[in-house]
């Protein structure tokens, strides 16, 4: 018996034989997730249909999950047409797992609906599909063409990568959290630091973190190039042998993590928050698949409670899902945020990818809890995007400059 990594064990269970690192295997994913890009994916199916001269039936309709979140509600007529096409497809192919606009961001809704199971194999037409690693799923992004292929055939190829082990110890200090940790990790490893690797999170702190923190960490694993970022199962699932061999090993002490900020235009351009006190902000954004969960809104509300957003600053809040929104509404988190001057947007991806809502003007600065600060990401290449935790963004909304939350809450 050889000690094996998570990904080897999972792929071996899937194909029913030994799998070596570097080997290519053909697998049938348990779940295929798509969002608004299901429309263009369906168009690819139609191209195939016209070439073979007959309709293609989706191979496994029960394994398909479609969640509309990217441009919701439709911004222009072409978005409406896209959504319409998806609704027609869902009906025609009898896809039951369809979540129309308003349910929330795909990476929040899919786990809420119970599709992110321990030891499951999930692919999605979105790079942040890796978020489900928080639930001990093997989950990674694929492109539109490949999603069309999975719809038609139910299968795809995967290469078994080598693995990295990241051990987590200790406990976060007040006003610091998972976002600061993952920015710290990416700052050290680099944007290509884990390219094509399976990243496993180990250690007492990894198992003990709340699921919202695990999701933030798994979500941003792709920002250092990882294929997956995965946590141990809570009960039954698949996990690496204690003696498994890793290409690289890292250890992080949560107590030593301070508020971190990724500066323009790279996610690995990470600095300590106190170095950036001179940077003025025009827009603050709390939400996205990285940091739009209840715990994120709650910490923002704690910082904003009884205070007002600085004049000249726009604070945008996007709850990650309807469920998150409802919980935040029932606990007065939402009313606290509204009273402070925040604008609440419907649960969805919103301004994160620059397709609609909260666009920036040239020269403006946005501090966001999202996962990408690429040039032009929020629709304007002459704007600057900084990334930070919900606590740092909330604190900065109060002062109008990038601010250490520990300073505001002293």
């Amino acid at each position, binding site marked *: 018996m050889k000690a094996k990594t998570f990904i080897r064990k999972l792929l071996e269970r899937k194909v029913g034989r030994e799998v070596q690192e570097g080997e290519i295997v053909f697998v049938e994913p348990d779940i295929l997730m798509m969002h608004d890009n299901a429309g263009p994916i369906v168009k690819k199916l139609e191209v*195939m249909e016209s070439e*073979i001269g007959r309709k293609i039936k989706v191979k496994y309709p029960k394994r398909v999950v479609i969640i509309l979140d990217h441009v919701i509600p439709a911004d222009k007529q072409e978005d409406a047409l896209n959504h319409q096409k998806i609704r027609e497809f869902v009906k025609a192919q009898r896809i039951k797992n369809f979540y129309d606009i308003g349910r929330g961001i795909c990476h929040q809704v899919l786990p809420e609906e119970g599709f992110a199971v321990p030891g499951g194999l999930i692919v999605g037409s979105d790079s942040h599909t890796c978020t489900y690693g928080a639930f001990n799923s093997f989950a990674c992004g694929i492109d539109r063409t490949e999603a069309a292929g999975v719809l038609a055939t139910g299968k795809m190829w995967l290469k078994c990568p080598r693995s990295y082990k990241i051990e987590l110890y200790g406990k976060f200090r007040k006003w610091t959290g998972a976002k600061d940790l993952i920015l710290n990790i990416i700052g050290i490893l680099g944007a290509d630091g884990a390219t094509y690797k399976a990243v496993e999170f180990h250690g007492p702190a990894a198992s003990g973190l709340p699921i919202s923190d695990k999701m933030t960490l798994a979500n941003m694993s792709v920002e250092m190039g990882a294929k997956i970022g995965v946590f141990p199962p809570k009960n039954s699932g698949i996990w690496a042998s204690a003696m498994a061999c890793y290409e690289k090993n890292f250890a992080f002490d949560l107590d030593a993590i301070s508020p971190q900020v990724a500066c323009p235009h790279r996610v690995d351009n990470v600095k300590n928050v106190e170095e950036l006190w001179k940077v003025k902000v025009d827009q603050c954004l709390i939400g996205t698949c990285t940091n739009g969960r209840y715990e994120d809104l709650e910490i923002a509300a704690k910082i904003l409670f009884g205070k007002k957003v600085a004049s000249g600053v726009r604070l945008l809040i996007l709850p990650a899902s309807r469920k998150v929104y409802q919980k935040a509404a029932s606990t007065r988190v939402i009313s606290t945020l509204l009273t402070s001057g925040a604008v609440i947007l419907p649960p969805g991806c919103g301004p994160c990818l620059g397709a609609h809502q909260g666009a920036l003007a040239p020269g403006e600065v946005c501090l966001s809890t999202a996962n990408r600060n690429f040039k032009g990401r929020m629709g304007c290449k002459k704007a600057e995007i900084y990334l930070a935790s919900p606590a740092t963004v909330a604190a900065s909304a109060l002062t109008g400059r990038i601010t250490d939350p520990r300073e505001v809450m002293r």
Partner: protein
Amino acid sequence: MRRVFNYSSIDSINTDQMYPGKYVYQDFDINHLFEDLDPEFIKKVKPGDIILAGKNFGYGSSREQPVVGLKKVGIKAVIAKSFARIFYRSGINQGLLLIESPEAVEAYKEGDGVEVDSKEGKIRVGKNTFQFPPLPVELQEILKDGGLLAHIVKELK
């Protein structure tokens, strides 16, 4: 002579720069290709041209418009120090030749001719020749059929 677009001085060039997010839910428009990376690219590029890139080329979003676009304008090959994972898969899916060869990229000097022989697995940069390993056989089939959709059509027929 084929033109060489050399972007190798920048690592982790992302797909937002290659095809901005504000266009990804609109009909594909080739004129946006590389818009935030090099606005001159689309004006200059001709079939048969080659791209040189640094580490982690194609980082970020899973959008495939950059690879679809490069295939459409007739890029012969992208030679990079390394590729981002989803981008690399997109290359296979679209039948675009992506070659990982840090040696070839580093050997390039302004004005060098670059030739690729995919059958022989050879890259010529100026006077130097570099070998690159063939794709695994399972994936060669997809590339040979001209991409994943054509490959599946063959299977479904």
